[in-house]
């Protein structure tokens, strides 16, 4: 491997950034390129190949996973921050943007999650999408998504990251609206795109400000010069990036698109709207953590946005009845945990939770898909029940996913969530710790409800549904993800300063100067058992409410009614509020402007008398067949011009 020290970044990091064009790093550009080619290929040959075209897409996702493993292996043998130089994208004036790839510890963690889970979900989709009229196109879009997400993860320039950021948005739009014949689904797709565009404006302004502050859009350039950014600028910059992240990672106030995004086929919900794309905002903020630490006030805002999102979404999830909507709000809530972790300076804990969440939430969504597959696409959890017998593999893997997300040791979610909450406590955020714990109780509660209603008790579906276990292509990914959800936490970071924590160290911003003090005298010996108690309380309450009471009574709907329940069921009326502000008030404004344009602007310019007079006169000519004459005159005139020119030339 040829190593050359780059001179393009500043002095401090210069010795640590290694430019390379050889080895696995040298061909890392294949990782985003192959699925992009797959997209084009499958789209082009889909009609001819039919369902066989899936093999191309699945094969490519497998190859890309292997390539990512190769890159990771190379990084492990020779740890460092690598840059693979690539051609320029935009170069004008002082703005230079190249397609360079950035490969460091954070990159490979993301690469493995995206390609690993991505591959499994490609495989799962073979069975799940079987028989769909647009089967090849689905796989083409999956490959497009994979390519986009990998561009996002690998980009060394923020604008290339933004390219991936927007292309995952496009993939998401295409896949949410995959069954566009259904108007609601099409509307959901558009809502996702537009909401993300709002975040994009924030992201773009962040890029403008970055350029104004440090004169480059390179990630390494920005990170390197982070310390030179004035605190006011840093505050604005971090909040602007947060605006972008809040849309992509579904945080308050821009989370509203994600629950609607469940209109897409379930593998899409698992891959894009749970395991990978929605974590892009978290990745962005961690990637920029050296900038974040320049503004403690901005970080605190991030922390509160995160914890309130976690709590709000968990509350809403308690009263949803749709098998996927519950998981969607759960995803919003879990993303809230990741964001709150970033806000309290627990960057690596946030990535740890990102990884375990990809395992167990990917798993839970695939379970939901398997259940819907068996239930003729019914989604009301109150109309399920007793599926443990009909679908043993789905049941056991679901059990693992449920315990993992609920925070039961030794499953993966326990470690990552607990480490976030203890870190919040140790960094002095007592209130956030308490609120986070409350959200954890709610999580255990609503996920238990989800699990109990689907799998326990007696069947509550009609005689016309005959549940059956899903085909092998679907159950194998379930088993793999269940295995990862079981041992993933233990293996990666069983103790707070475990292997993953140490591995990620060189990639995150330093927090030692932020002056964090513990919120109280409690130690991990107390905090960890408390987290276990939180999970137990949530599960226990759900057991009492649903298994002991409702299921034994044979209920098929939520029994408790009241103002509070109504508020949760209607999701705090946030959608209605936005509708009133943006659609109705915005619509009135737009109608007003349009009226102004037609009556005032156009009216003033064209004095109606003059217009009609002139119109009348000239129109008469056009209508009396003189147009031929016009063309004739036109040609004659041109001829004259040409004649003069020719004469001049000859002379």
């Amino acid at each position, binding site marked *: 491997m040829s190593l050359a020290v780059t001179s393009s970044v500043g002095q401090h990091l210069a010795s640590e950034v290694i430019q390379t064009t050889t080895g696995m790093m040298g061909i890392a550009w294949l990782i985003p390129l192959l699925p992009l080619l797959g997209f084009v290929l499958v789209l082009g040959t889909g009609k001819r190949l039919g369902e066989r075209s899936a093999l191309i897409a699945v094969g490519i996702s497998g190859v890309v996973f292997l390539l990512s493993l190769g890159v990771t292996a190379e990084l492990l043998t020779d740890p460092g921050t690598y840059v693979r130089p690539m*051609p*320029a*994208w*935009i*170069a*004008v*004036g*002082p*703005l*230079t943007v190249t397609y360079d790839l950035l490969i460091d510890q954070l990159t490979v963690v993301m690469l493995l999650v995206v390609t690993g889970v991505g591959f499994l979900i490609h495989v799962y989709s073979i069975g799940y999408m079987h028989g769909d009229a647009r089967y090849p196109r689905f796989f083409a879009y999956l490959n497009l998504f994979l390519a986009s997400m990998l561009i996002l993860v690998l980009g060394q320039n923020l*604008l290339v990251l933004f*390219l991936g950021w*927007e*292309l995952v948005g*496009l993939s998401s739009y295409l896949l949410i*609206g995959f069954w*566009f*014949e*259904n*108007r609601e689904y099409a509307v959901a*797709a*558009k809502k996702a*795109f*537009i909401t993300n*565009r*709002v975040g*994009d*404006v924030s992201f*773009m*302004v962040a890029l*403008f*400000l970055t*350029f*104004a502050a440090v004169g480059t859009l390179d990630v390494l350039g920005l990170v390197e010069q982070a310390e030179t950014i004035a605190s006011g600028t840093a505050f604005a910059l971090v909040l602007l990036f947060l605006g972008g992240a809040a849309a992509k990672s579904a945080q308050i106030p821009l989370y509203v698109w994600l629950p609607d995004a469940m209109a897409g086929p379930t593998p899409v919900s698992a891959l894009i709207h749970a395991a990978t794309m929605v974590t892009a905002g978290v990745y962005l903020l961690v990637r920029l953590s050296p900038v974040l630490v320049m503004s403690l006030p901005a970080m605190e805002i991030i922390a509160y946005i995160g914890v309130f999102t976690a709590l709000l979404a968990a509350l809403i999830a308690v009263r949803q009845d749709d098998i996927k909507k519950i998981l969607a709000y759960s995803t919003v809530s879990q993303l809230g945990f990741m964001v709150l972790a970033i806000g309290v300076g627990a960057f690596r804990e946030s990535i740890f939770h990102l990884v375990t969440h990809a395992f167990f939430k990917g798993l839970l969504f695939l379970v939901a898909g398997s259940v819907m597959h068996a239930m003729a696409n019914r989604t009301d959890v109150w109309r399920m029940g007793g599926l443990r017998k009909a679908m043993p593999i789905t049941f056991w893997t679901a059990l693992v996913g449920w315990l993992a997300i609920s925070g039961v040791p030794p499953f993966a979610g326990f470690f990552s969530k607990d480490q976030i909450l203890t870190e919040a406590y140790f960094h002095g955020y007592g209130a956030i710790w308490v609120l986070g714990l409350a959200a954890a109780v709610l999580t255990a509660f609503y996920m238990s409800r989800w699990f109990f209603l689907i799998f326990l008790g007696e069947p509550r579906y009609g005689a016309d549904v005959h549940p059956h276990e899903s085909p092998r292509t679907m159950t194998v990914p379930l088993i793999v993800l269940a295995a990862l959800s079981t041992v993933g936490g233990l293996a990666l970071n069983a103790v707070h300063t475990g292997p993953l924590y140490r591995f990620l160290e060189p990639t995150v911003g330093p927090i030692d100067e932020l002056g964090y003090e513990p919120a109280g005298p409690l130690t991990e010996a107390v905090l960890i058992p408390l987290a276990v108690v939180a999970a137990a309380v949530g599960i226990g309450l759900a057991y009492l409410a649903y298994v002991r009471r409702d299921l034994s009574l044979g209920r098929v709907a939520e029994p408790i009614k009241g103002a509070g329940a109504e508020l949760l069921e209607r999701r705090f009326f946030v959608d209605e509020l936005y509708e009133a502000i943006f659609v109705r008030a915005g619509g009135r*404004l*737009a109608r007003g*402007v*349009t009226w102004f*344009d037609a009556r005032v*602007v*156009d009216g003033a*310019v*064209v004095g109606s008398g003059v*217009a009609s007079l002139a*119109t009348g006169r*000239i*129109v008469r000519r*056009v*209508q009396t067949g003189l*147009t*031929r004459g016009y*063309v004739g005159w*036109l*040609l004659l005139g*041109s001829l004259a*011009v*040409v004649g*003069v*020119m020719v004469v001049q*030339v000859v002379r």
Partner: protein
Amino acid sequence: MGLLTITLLIPVFGALVLAMLDRDGRTPKVVALVASLATFAASLALLVPFDLGDPGLQLTDRLVWIPAIGADIALAVDGTSLALILLTTFLTPLIILASWDTITDRVRGYLAAFLLLEAAVIGVFAATDLLLFYIFFEFTLVPMYLIIGIWGGAARKAAAVKFFLYTLLGGLLMLVAILYLYGQAGGSFAYEDVLAVSLSATEQRWLFAAFLIAFAVKVPLFPVHTWLPDAHTEAPTGGSVFLAGVLLKLGTFGLLRYALPFFPEATREFAPWLLAIAVVGILYGAVVALMQADIKRLIAYSSVSHMGFVVLGTFALTTTATSASVVQMVNHGLSTGALFLLVGFLYERRHTRQIAAFGGLAKRIPVMAGLWLVVSLSSLALPGLNGFVGEFPILLGAFQVNRTAGVLAAFGAVLAALYLLWAYQRMFHGPLEGADNENTADLGAREIGVLAPLVVVIVAIGLYPKPLYDLVEPSVDRVLAEVGVEVELAEDELAVDEEDER
């Protein structure tokens, strides 16, 4: 006679051949197509002798024209004009191919009008004599007027007249200004002579205003834009494509070539106002586009919004933003041209442009739906397609000059997504209902052939705009130096400077 003159004369020659034909039918179409393709080939050949390192006007062809008044037929190009000439000659054959089966009435006249229009536009971009420029500039009105007035829709006459009067009145003011400059330059219309004239601040203000009005109408800039939706709605498909794709650029080109370097003090003085007008235009055009029920009017208002970005970049007066504004002229020509082609193809099938008349079409006509989406995404500046690589540097550059303008204009991106995807959803998504929608045929081979080159270029520029920037940037820097703003150096140029110092 140089290559530039030949490029300009090929379409004129084509029109002459058409005039000599005595019958409509297939032959005139072939003649026009061959002529337009030859023009495109000739303009591509211009790239060979063109020196990318030379920021000035080059490939000069000069013929004494009217010695008595010192007017010459003087043609030359810089990177900016070459880029726009290539855009023009690229679009014209596509327009002719797009109209292949749909124009049945007075075919020769229609085709001749387009070829003459093409020649006139090349003349506008290449003229370096002010009188010649003015003649070409005004001459473009005549064929366009006829194209709208003869081959247009139901209300074509009123629209044609509105278009004609509006732009002619704007042009007259400029003529007065040109004559004044002619006097000041000691009886010369030559570009360099006028450039050398030193004018007082007051003179600059008035003359700048005269040029600005003429060009603002063409762009069109808010609030003198209302002729555009009418003209677009009534124009035949080819007319709309040429209007949006090329003619609107005459305004922004004119600003950059004439108004800025001739009147540097006035430019710097008025720049903040123009930034404000541009931002208003971006948001205003987008909001009005949202409310349109007619898809052609929607795209017309989107042009008002998008051309606002071009003006924003022009008057940011930085290398980044102003170069990007030239790139965005090309991009807007490609994506809006493609959108009007698609609308035209759909109109030929359905004879309506009402968005409400369509629904669920993606199921029935997937190829058109796919292309429509790609072009819409290009227009709403999705990264990876051409619109973004122009829009982003414009916004970035504008932000460095005026933060409020940069931030407000960025909201145009949300609105563009809103009106384009809303229209797309209503037309192509949802259930396929009604016999009309169920019987809509997908694109044929010829139509795909027209759109394919556009989509290829849209993607190519989106992923690798560097050659285009390399073409236009030196010429933009030249203009900015004339305006007297500090030209930003690229990073590598700075590195070279440092080495020199060592």
